[in-house]
């Protein structure tokens, strides 16, 4: 399989994330394994004292409101895909999708999927790397709407030159 034919899908969208369709789009005849990560809106968070430098208490979330700097976000998603291919040359297809808008608990908000010929090729690590990087350099933000107020969630990563 010619690597130039390996599909890369990136998208900022208001539509539902359809895992079946995305997986199909990054499955080649040579593909035998896919690692897919999805993130969802948590309606109840019980973990305390961590994440992004902020100490937060257990709390409920009514919904999240996502916004993106769409053209830059899609360019940065392509960069994440490029970094994945540089680190895991065996990866065949890559899909990176961020849903934006008003999203309620249990709704998938983000997907990173990587395919490869076999599962022992690093394809799990590639997907894990993808979501970690997305949360560092892809310009998307969320506002959390809780029963008793709302708050912008801010990350803590400061990109370096060339990122």
């Amino acid at each position: 399989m010619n690597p130039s034919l390996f599909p890369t899908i990136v998208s900022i969208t208001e539509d539902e994330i359809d895992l079946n369709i995305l997986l199909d789009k990054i499955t080649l005849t040579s593909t035998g394994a896919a690692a897919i990560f999805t993130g969802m809106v948590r309606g109840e968070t019980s973990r305390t004292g961590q994440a992004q430098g902020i100490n937060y208490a257990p709390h409920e979330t009514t919904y999240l409101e996502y916004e993106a700097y769409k053209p830059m976000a899609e360019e940065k998603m392509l960069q994440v895909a490029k970094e994945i291919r540089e680190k895991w040359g065996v990866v065949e297809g890559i899909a990176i999708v961020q849903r934006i808008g008003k999203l309620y608990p249990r709704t998938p908000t983000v997907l990173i999927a990587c395919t490869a010929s076999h599962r022992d090729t690093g394809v799990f690590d590639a997907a894990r790397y993808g979501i970690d990087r997305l949360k560092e350099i892809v310009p998307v933000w969320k506002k959390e709407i809780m029963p008793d107020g709302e708050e912008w969630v801010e990350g803590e990563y400061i990109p370096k030159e060339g990122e």
Partner: protein
Amino acid sequence: MHKIKILLFATMRTRAKRSSLELEIKKDSTVAELKEILVAEIPALEASLHHTLVSIDREFAFDEDIIPENAEIALFPPVSGG
């Protein structure tokens, strides 16, 4: 002087109560100089400027970077997508 377009996102947008503005800046102004001009224009932004990210033409930019003509600038907090 040349004109630039500035996009504001998330906290920056909320504080500035607008999602974009246009500014006239001197040729060869840096990102640091732009921030000063911006705070003069919109004082509400000052509090968050120390941890604001800046992009020029969709690439991350830094205080000493020079802003080209017709650049698309964006200011936003560290990202929190996913």
